[in-house]
């Protein structure tokens, strides 16, 4: 029997690195909710963290993010250009990788593969969002980035259970979710939801994490969950390690995608995911 849910919830709350998102993200979130905050205020808070500034500018200027046709040279410009919410999402996107670091040597490759898939899915979510003119593609980027976050929590906080799960997947040739249910009685979507609730993420992002395998169960966030679900299928189809999950017909219909949109989307995904991985998760 693996670690039970209550113990995991306790651990998530207790762990320093997971107890809050990076301080700066919390500050940015608070400021955004305050109507008195100006772009200059927000920029000045972000500017205190030089490493963060460097990362933000690198991403804002990278080809896959394409924040502006002009070079974004300052955080003030970036905030004015992107808007508050996109800035907040960008802060989260560049900070998330630093929260998870103490890994067993034997799981290092798994972790790298995990982040590559997450970034690919983030890019795919953004591409789909843009192609259907969804109002907030940056939030979809974050939702895609976090859709499997429960897996990384499992790898970091319950490595023994995680190895058992991998063995079950290999010996029975079943999906990760089914193997998790067998070993833990819950799955990475439940773990991800716990973390999302604890981090106070938007209900839309939490729904994407919780329901990306079963988009037809979504109610309030049907469009968002359908985007991440479809993005996950497209990402897996371009990668070579796992079997492709089947696309849910309802998700496809909700998004009103057309079959001839697939080729340009997949080609864009192939190109931009390589760029995004190079910028967000460079090989050390």
């Amino acid at each position: 029997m693996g670690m039970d849910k209550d113990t995991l919830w306790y651990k998530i709350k207790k762990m320093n690195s997971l107890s809050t998102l990076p301080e700066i993200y919390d500050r940015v979130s608070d400021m955004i909710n305050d109507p008195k905050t100006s772009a200059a205020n927000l920029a000045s808070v972000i500017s205190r963290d030089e490493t963060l500034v460097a990362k933000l500018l690198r991403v804002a200027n990278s080809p896959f993010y394409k924040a502006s046709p002009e070079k974004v040279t300052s955080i003030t410009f970036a905030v004015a250009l992107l808007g508050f919410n996109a800035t907040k999402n960008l802060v989260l996107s560049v900070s998330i990788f630093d929260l998870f670091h103490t890994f067993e040597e034997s799981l290092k490759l798994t972790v790298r593969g995990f982040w590559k898939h997450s970034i690919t899915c983030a890019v795919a979510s953004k591409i789909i969002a843009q192609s259907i003119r969804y109002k907030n593609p940056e939030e979809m980027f974050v939702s895609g980035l976090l859709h499997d976050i429960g897996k990384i929590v499992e790898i970091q906080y319950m490595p023994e259970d995680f190895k058992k799960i991998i063995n079950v997947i290999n010996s029975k040739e079943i999906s990760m979710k089914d193997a998790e249910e067998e070993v833990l009685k819950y799955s990475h979507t439940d773990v991800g939801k716990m973390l999302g609730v604890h981090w106070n993420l938007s209900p839309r992002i939490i729904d994407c994490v919780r329901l990306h395998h079963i988009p037809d169960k979504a109610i309030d966030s049907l469009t968002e969950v359908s985007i991440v679900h479809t993005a996950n299928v497209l990402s897996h189809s371009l990668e070579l390690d796992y079997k492709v999950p089947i696309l849910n017909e309802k998700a496809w219909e909700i998004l009103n995608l057309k079959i001839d949109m697939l080729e340009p989307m997949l080609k864009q995904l192939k190109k931009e995911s390589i760029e995004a991985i190079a910028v967000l998760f460079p090989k050390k």
Partner: protein
Amino acid sequence: MGLIELDKIEPGMVLAKPVYSHMGALLLKEGKKLTERELLILESWKIKEVDVEGIESSEDKDKVVSDQLEKEELDKIEAEIETKFSSIPKDNNIMMEIKKIVKAIKVESLLEEKKHGNG
């Protein structure tokens, strides 16, 4: 025509190019039919290979090998994609379209890699 190593020469093959000694002296003329006698001459002058009619040059042979390699690689891509999509029903049009596009993308990026590797 193509270069061929001495031990692969069969009697009756015809020289596509004249053979010169290392000092530059003409040993055998173009169009000469190779028999035991000619082989003896070539051996005694320590000639390693000659150009004969009717076979592919070694460059062509390399090309054949790389084509075969490509075929192996194509088969590999095919196999990987078949495995990935093995649980998807064949009548699922959207998934089959994704499969087709992914295969084309993989083949294209393999060709790109080759081009860069050779250039």
